[in-house]
């Protein structure tokens, strides 16, 4: 079904890379949130991901499901705001979908992302087009399912998911928000990129960057 699988250690690495990417993009995310929200999305996500990194210290990734659940629960108790429950649910549902696994095949990953997305939708009740993180995650999950069905290579699948997320993120710019704080602005929310869609794109992008190396020998990997 795929050229390789994602190991538990890869998942740990992905979380670490995502945490440092969030740290690098903290001010950018906050700036996006200042335009149509309350200017805390970067700080919130960074506080959460820093706590996750502390929590995961020494984690091996033998139990991917347990690992992802821990990430989700840490985010729930450290982030607050909308981002906390939403990203918390995303990871908790990804964890539930991968319970007991130590390696993920591409189909497992596609299912996990889809489960996470469904969790976010159940929690936040947003539809695609509402100008939220859903707008980045939905096309990414669809791209993964399609790639899994077409038996594409893992790295191609991850790349297409990241690209779909990026397009979804950019497509939030002209939208008028219908969920979250930005919806209070009405028409004034149009013309700005959604911060949550941006952090979700980064999630898919870091997955592609990290897992694309998954099949290759350690020495050739770029994210170390």
């Amino acid at each position, binding site marked *: 079904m795929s050229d390789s699988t994602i190991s538990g250690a890869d998942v740990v690495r992905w979380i670490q890379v995502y945490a440092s990417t969030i740290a690098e993009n903290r001010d950018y995310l906050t700036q996006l949130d200042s335009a149509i929200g309350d*200017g805390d999305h970067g700080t919130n996500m960074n506080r959460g991901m820093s706590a996750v990194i502390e929590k995961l210290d020494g984690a091996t990734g033998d139990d991917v499901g347990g690992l992802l659940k821990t990430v989700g629960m840490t985010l729930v108790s450290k*982030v607050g705001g909308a981002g906390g429950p939403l990203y918390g649910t995303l990871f908790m549902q990804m964890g539930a979908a991968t319970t007991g696994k130590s390696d993920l095949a591409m189909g497992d990953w596609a299912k996990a992302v889809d489960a996470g997305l469904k969790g976010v939708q159940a929690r936040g009740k947003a539809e695609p087009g509402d100008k939220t993180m859903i707008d980045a995650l939905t096309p990414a999950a669809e791209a993964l399912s399609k790639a899994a069905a077409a038996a594409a290579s893992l790295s191609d699948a991850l790349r297409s998911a990241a690209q779909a997320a990026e397009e979804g993120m950019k497509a939030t710019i002209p939208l008028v928000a219908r969920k979250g*704080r930005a919806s209070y602005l009405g028409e004034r929310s149009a013309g700005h990129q959604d911060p949550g869609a941006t952090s979700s794109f980064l999630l898919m992008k870091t997955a592609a960057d990290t897992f694309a190396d998954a099949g290759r020998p350690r020495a050739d990997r770029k994210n170390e």
Partner: protein
Amino acid sequence: MKKLINNPDDVVREALQGTAAAHPDLKVFFDPHYIVRADAPVQGKVGIVSGGGSGHEPMHGGFVGMGMLDAACPGEVFTSPTPDQMLEATKAVSGGAGVLHIVKNYTGDVMNFEMAADLGKAEGIEVEAVVIDDDVAVQDSLYTAGRRGVGATVLAEKLTGAAAEAKATLAEVAELCKKVNDQSRSMGMALTSCVTPSAGKPTFELGDDEMEIGIGIHGEPGRERKKLAPASGIIEQIAGTIIGDLPFKQGDEVLAFVNGMGGTPLIELYVVYNELTKILDGKGVKITRNLIGSYITSLEMAGCSITLLKLDDELTKLWDAPVKTSGLRWGV
């Protein structure tokens, strides 16, 4: 950024330490953060819990005490607190008669309190949540997250606190909270933006001759940006929108709450109150209770909000009941 703080990341914790040192009637817990009245749980009394982002002081921590909240959960600045804080607070004030969560209608607050309520129920505590959504600046429609919870929150905390003190049941207190919310309308405006400690610069830029009408309490931009105008015109627009929405009618008795956003001095709030009385007089609406001051704030934002609550005998009596908190106190 000009603030009397140390490290921006430590503001909430240090302010809570100051609160703990200042008010022996309160117990302050850290990691997770929550504030409870020192005599909690009061056996047989419904516990009232609220919470939200910090930066709105005295709300909510300043409203913990006899006759008002049993506990408050302060989040990071302008960020909803987390379910674990709410769960610990809920457990700490549960005196066997159930716990009411007063939740301001923001996506984050609603979701976090939902999770906390589930956790509380799983621990065998009866929890009811009432969502406050009184901000007429926001349309309540399929196309928004609904109206924001603003000034009515303060009134709901006072009134439900009084009812709980009088040993009303959880169902009664929740019903009362909904009634207060239904009969309240609010709207705010800003002359300046606030600066969150973590961002370090104004959330929005406003020209020297501009104001934002229809703002929330988190430095969100408002419904429209306008040229600065005399207080009379500003209050006419805000009060008019509020009055038309419920609507408040000739002969109604109301509580008028003129709230400062944090950076506006009291003398201006009295000028605003003066304008408001003229408008309500003109409509035949009678102010029988009032509250004037900075009670639900947005850090150092300059501006004000107005909340009107339609009163009846029950609400008036509950308003007059004793309250003993650092932010609101009378009768004791």
